[in-house]
């Protein structure tokens, strides 16, 4: 079903964000194409998560326009936003699972809200999602507090995938994971992206994740985005980008 290059899934034009009077984004432009994994990197406090939060409608930028799946998310009624939200999933840092519910119930929250599936089918779907994200079957009945950090992220991803979204947002997917779990999570994201043809917008610090998963990288420096493949960005003259890719960690991650 390959079509001519379609419209970008996410399109940002001239986005300006101020948080607490501090200018974080100064007329930022960004296009995310269908089926790609785009990673946003940047120093702490440069507003990577703020960018993600403005795209998913959790906060409204002071200027500019944001279109997701061809719709303007900034000037949209609550109801339209709800409909659009069904088409994307968000994985927050540490999963953001509802702590009073089991993992299976967490996955079923969006299903219960937006579909009329029978409980039996929802149980089956929850089990299938768990196996997709590589969680063991006994995880279904556990509460989030009984899971390790890596398992919580997987469960969060399973919930984000419950409504079969076209677009997935990942906020620091590998932060706080040990290197082995982080590698597995990278593989999981890459694998799911392929088999479900997802578009992935990810915020990360992790150079290994960048290397293993990202098709393109957007670097947030000086309140602007510089976008390109890793190889293109390594030749950028900006000192922060140089430091990021050519520092000891960057060299180690990119050498292999």
């Amino acid at each position, binding site marked *: 079903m390959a*079509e001519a290059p*379609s419209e970008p899934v996410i399109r940002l034009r001239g986005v300006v964000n101020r948080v607490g009077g501090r200018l974080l984004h100064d007329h930022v432009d960004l296009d995310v194409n269908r089926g790609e994994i785009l990673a946003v990197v940047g120093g702490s406090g440069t507003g990577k998560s703020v960018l993600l939060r403005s795209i998913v409608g959790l906060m409204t930028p002071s200027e500019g326009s944001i279109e997701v799946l061809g719709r303007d998310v900034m000037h949209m009624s609550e109801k339209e936003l709800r409909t659009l939200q069904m088409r994307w999933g968000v994985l927050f840092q540490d999963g953001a699972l509802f702590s009073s519910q089991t993992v299976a119930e967490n996955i079923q929250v969006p*299903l219960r809200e937006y579909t009329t*599936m029978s409980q039996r089918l929802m149980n089956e*779907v929850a*089990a299938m999602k768990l196996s997709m994200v590589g969680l063991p079957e006994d995880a279904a009945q556990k509460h989030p507090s009984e899971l390790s950090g890596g398992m919580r992220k997987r469960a969060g991803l399973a919930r984000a995938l419950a409504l*079969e979204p076209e677009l997935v947002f990942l906020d620091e997917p590998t932060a706080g994971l040990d290197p082995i779990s982080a590698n597995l999570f990278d593989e999981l994201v890459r694998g799911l992206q392929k*088999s*479900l*043809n997802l578009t992935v917008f990810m915020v990360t610090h992790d150079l290994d994740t960048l290397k293993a998963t990202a098709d393109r990288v957007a670097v947030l420096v000086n309140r602007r985005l510089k976008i390109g493949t890793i190889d293109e960005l390594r030749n950028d003259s900006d000192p922060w980008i140089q430091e990021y890719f050519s520092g000891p960690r960057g060299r180690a991650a990119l050498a292999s």
Partner: protein
Amino acid sequence: MGNSDSAIEIDTRPWLDVEQRGRTFYLTVGGSWTVRHAAILDPQLRALEAGHASDVEIDASGIDRLDSTGGWLLVRTKMTFEAAGIRVPVFKTPELYTALLASIEREHITPPVSIEERVTLAAFLERIGRATHNVAIQAVGIIGYLGHVTLEWLEAIYAPRGNLRVTAIVHQIEEVGINALPIVGLLMFLIGIVLAYQGADQLKRFDLEILTINALGIGVLREIGVLFTAIIIAGRSGSAFTAQIGTMKVNEELDAMQTIGLNVVDVLILPRIIALVIALPFLTFYADIMALIGGAVMCYFDLGITIPEYIRQLHTAVGVNTLLVGLIKAPVFAYVIAMVGCYEGMNVERNAASVGKLTTRSVVEAVFLVIVLDAGFSVLFSVLGI
């Protein structure tokens, strides 16, 4: 998958056809097999009966959109037939989705999640039993904690090792005592008015309205003043203790304190208990005065008793002993409220719901214990003839 930017609009209706020829059962499906249609497809697929067929041929090549939920429905149907001993020699799927279907089938090791339906009588009885057991454990725990804290507290007095934190105590006194003055004052003033009005209304019939003051004075000083203040403080400060300590526990602040070598009881719990034990008697005294002022206002407007008359009558009705009988209870109530508040705070688990649950529990338990203790005091005083 659908490359259009308006995937919902291009969703077509899913359909399925069945046909039986000889010993072969043909299942032909098409349309959009997506999560939005799963609720319609699911019962139809479950109801499929292959009859006496020995083979099933599934032709899914008519599917134009498939996601993993739709894929699961297809795979489940195939597996159900196979489990019933029917062969599925033909399983035609669009090439685009072959990999997805294969991975769903391959990775399907997880049996469906069974979420317990807790509606049976046995489950109900189990809950009662569990709750009773919890109450017992709770009671044992709270008594153990009482002992633990009392030991720490005696140690602090007899063998001071600098573990009485005066700054923290003074800060807590401001929190639980001085900051509570407006609300306690207002409520007790109103209660004074209410009691005086009710008393006056009844006693007027016997021309004994002057005795309203006796009833009010004794009632407020002995019981109402201290009891209401304790209940207000349980709601205001006991809950705050639980929430503060509980949130610190959720943030691992308590663990951090221990690794630094700070004793949690010294740093967090003793200051709160001592502060409340000091503050509550003063608050009670203040509450008594406010209630009596409220009563005086009501007597003046309703019964025309002037303030000097009111004071004179009050003087004949109550003595210092009446006041002391009320006040002596205050430190005991304070101790219980602070203990319960801190104890429940320490019990918080590391999740968001836990803080709320235990805060509620701390208030309920504190109010309950205060009233039980008050009843105990009444019995004690009547035996002693006070």
